[in-house]
């Protein structure tokens, strides 16, 4: 087995056992990241990664992550390492500080080898909105990897790194994880500091791990959670994230979200998810259908709240302190208009306009205000559901990976890619996607979610199911 086929946990064990070194691991992955047939990466920093790996190999006491390589979504600020958020607006931008979650992983001994491609400012579900070209799905290079964290998903599926970081606003970790056949987790809102995560929609954005095993996702998560004095919305984390080991689901009550198992979900996706749900009883759990009466309003609610927040969050890109700056503007207004017209792509502009409108005087109550009220109703739906069940399950994405260009002409069809993930995001709940089978040769993701702070139980459930499913498919052409 090649080094790059090992899970992160196995790589750490191999380093600890003296069978390999951080330098060796980093070099093996760097080669694949630099070749990058899938356009997973926007930047690869060989020198920085190798020098850090050398440093770690020289330490008397090995840090917990032992110098295993990682890739970071380009939405996360990394000091001196170009960070663009997939936008022309930030072409060549070198941040002056590192995001808290990244700094925590580096302190734990992770070695960053590069920054991954994404939909511009995390706005998209296919990574086609990147200003630097789309990322290709390692399972089929004519298809998208999902998005917005498409590069972070594809690089893990393609064995360019064992794990990576993404960010999830309405499904941007879970949906690409599903489309790339890997594990992707969005923790409870507030679990991981957002300091340094380039904001899309502040009340929804969360950082989370991509990995090929549930245990790797848990390990990465365990080094990031907890209060950060730089993020007022980050939470104290009293119960540490444990490495999951469950093999059974005795006594577990799984609620299947009825609204997300019917129309609008591809039959192949439904079948793969259903066959996994059918395993629950054999593992000692029970399955009950649950209803989320307001989930149907999730998409509309999300497309008011997220663009509204984005319209303010992206206002700072004015070409004055950093980033793209229009040349030769005569007056201030012209400077703003041209800088932003040139720097932002069409989807970003569309959402800024949507959000600006939703917040405008005279429309606020009908749009943003109403959306906040519906968001509260959706939260209540989940609270009621969790009175009866421990976790809820649904497909992660209504379809498997779609073809490049298939949905770019129709924003609404693209928005529908996130119909299963968005209600959970609006409720701020922890949720993950695990690969549960193939449909026409493409991976299908099963989404699990639980009440706030139920990360440990979710990971245990996902671990038991992962073993039962035994998903061992590898995308063609990535094994070399």
């Amino acid at each position: 087995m090649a080094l790059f086929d090992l899970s992160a946990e196995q790589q750490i064990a191999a380093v600890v056992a003296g069978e390999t070194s951080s330098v060796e691991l980093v070099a093996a992955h760097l080669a694949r990241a630099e070749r990058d047939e899938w356009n997973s990466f926007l930047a690869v920093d060989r020198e920085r990664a190798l020098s850090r790996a050398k440093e770690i190999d020289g330490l008397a006491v090995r840090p917990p992550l032992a110098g295993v390589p990682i890739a970071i979504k380009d939405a996360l600020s990394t000091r001196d390492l170009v960070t663009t958020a997939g936008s022309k607006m930030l072409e060549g931008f070198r941040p002056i500080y590192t995001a808290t979650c990244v700094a925590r992983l580096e302190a734990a001994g992770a070695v960053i080898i590069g920054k991954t491609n994404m939909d511009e400012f995390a706005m998209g579900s296919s990574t086609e909105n990147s200003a630097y070209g789309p990322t290709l799905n390692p399972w089929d290079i004519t298809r998208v990897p999902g998005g917005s964290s498409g590069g972070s998903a594809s690089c893990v599926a393609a064995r360019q790194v064992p794990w990576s970081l993404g960010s999830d606003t309405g499904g941007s970790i879970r949906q690409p994880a599903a489309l790339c056949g890997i594990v992707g987790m969005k923790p409870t809102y507030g679990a991981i500091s957002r300091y340094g995560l380039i904001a899309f929609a502040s009340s929804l954005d969360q950082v989370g791990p991509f990995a090929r095993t549930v245990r790797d996702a848990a390990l990465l998560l365990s080094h990031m959670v907890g209060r950060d004095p730089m993020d007022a919305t980050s939470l104290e984390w009293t119960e540490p994230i444990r490495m999951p080991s469950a093999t059974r689901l005795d006594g577990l009550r799984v609620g299947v979200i009825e609204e997300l198992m019917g129309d609008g979900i591809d039959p192949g996706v439904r079948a793969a998810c259903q066959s996994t749900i059918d395993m629950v009883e054999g593992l000692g759990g029970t399955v009950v259908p649950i209803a989320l009466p307001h989930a149907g309003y999730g998409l509309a609610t999300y497309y008011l709240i997220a663009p509204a927040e984005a319209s303010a969050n992206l206002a700072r890109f004015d070409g004055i302190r950093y980033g793209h700056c229009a040349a030769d503007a005569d007056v201030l207004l012209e400077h703003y208009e041209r800088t932003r017209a040139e720097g932002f792509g069409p989807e970003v502009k569309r959402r800024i306009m949507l959000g600006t409108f939703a917040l405008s005087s005279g429309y606020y109550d009908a749009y943003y205000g109403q959306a906040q009220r519906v968001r509260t109703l959706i939260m209540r739906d989940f609270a009621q559901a969790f009175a009866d069940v421990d976790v809820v399950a649904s497909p992660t994405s209504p379809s498997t990976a779609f073809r490049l260009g298939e949905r770019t002409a129709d924003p609404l069809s693209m928005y529908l890619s996130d119909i299963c993930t968005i209600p959970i995001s609006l409720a701020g709940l922890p949720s993950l996607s695990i690969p549960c089978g193939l449909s026409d040769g493409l991976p299908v993701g099963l989404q699990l979610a639980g009440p706030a702070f139920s990360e440990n139980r979710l990971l245990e459930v996902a671990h038991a199911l992962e073993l039962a499913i035994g998903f061992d498919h590898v995308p063609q052409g990535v094994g070399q």
Partner: protein
Amino acid sequence: MSDVQWEAVIGIEIHAQLLTATKMFCGCALSFGDPANTHTCPVCLAHPGALPVVNAEAIRLAVIAGHALGCEIPERSVFSRKNYFYPDLPKAYQISQFDEPICGPGRFRYLTEDGEKFLGITRAHLEEDAAKLNHFGGEGRRADALGSVVDFNRGGTPLLEIVTEPELHNGTDAAAFLKQLRQTLVHLGITDGSMEQGSMRADANISIRPLGVTTLGTKTELKNMNSFTFLERGIAAEIERQIGIVESGGTVTQETLHYEPATGHISSLRSKEEAHDYRYFPEPDLVPVVPDRGWVDEIRAALPELPVDRRDRWMREYELTFEDAEVLSEPAALGDYFEQVAADAPPKSAANWVRGDLRAFLRERGQEPWESDVAPGAVAQIIRMVEAREISMPSAKQVLAHIVAHGGDPKEVVASLGLGAIQDESALIAIVDELIAANPAQAAQLREGKEKLVGFFVGQAMKATQGRADPGRIGELVRERVAAS
């Protein structure tokens, strides 16, 4: 039309920079006058991914201010984003408060020569200041500048914005209110209150209506008047302008105005049509502020005596005039000094000495009483000696001047300078008799009833005794001896 009586209706908005050590939403130091852009960080430069965190000290100062303004402190308050593009606003939104401010409705008591008055406080909320634009080339104004550069040192400075009800009717009361509001905030350590340096700024919303009408007319907003005098004059000028417009058949348009103190000219900054839609919405990067009720009550209980209450007490208990109380209350250290003197001497005299000769003598040396070596006890002792007629008033001034210059104990200074009042009655009689003999013409006129000449003899006697005689007693003796001679 000209027989219509007009009433002006005025509300004030005050921005006060808070005396915190660091900025409102980041850890950068508040420091003025340092080289440009030396107090900045990813947060106050609005770098991608940076997040605000509320300064707890700013919350504490706002709660103190709220209590002093007689405001409710609501169970929770919320920060909101106020969106607009300008180079001095790096996030392109100002974090402010909108519908849930830190301080709710209140009522502020202030004193005028006509007695105490109250002004309703609508609210007070926290927000961050913008950065400073420096225009270079031309006259330093934006209009004729070659270019503009941004200094972000000031950006993110905590501001408390206080909004009053439209309950004022003239510039004089507005200035009196603002003066005492400033005094209160400075006294409580909330702001340094410097209007010249812009750490306290006031805008006035002004409208007029026929006396007796209860609805409000169209208002204009007069911006940034940086002294009490300018506020008073600016308001008066704007009221006059509005009356002029209406009486000549026009209508007042809603607009933002600039008052130019040098010329008294009022010019338009922007009209209502150009007003921004700020698209306020709750700041998702911050959680609501929910102050602990016990803590809020503790702050209220620990509030020191407010300047208005102190002045009121002086006027009631010490029988000081409105003006004495006003002068002695500012700054608070002067009031403290005065109270120490008044503790050991009649307060009325203490007021006169402290605000009068003591301050005047010290000012020549560039000092103020509270920072000088002149002990309040020494001043009190001098006053007591005068009251006991142990020294004359002119001698007392000499003693004080000596102590200001050289220090020392009043009794010892009196002795060493030989300034003790001449208590020996026969010595005084001898002096008076000598003067009568030397000035027969004046003595004759006095005898004929020219009372004014008593003063002449007293003056001569004071000169002869180098001020050590009691002028009252001399006057009595002059009358007796002239009549007898």
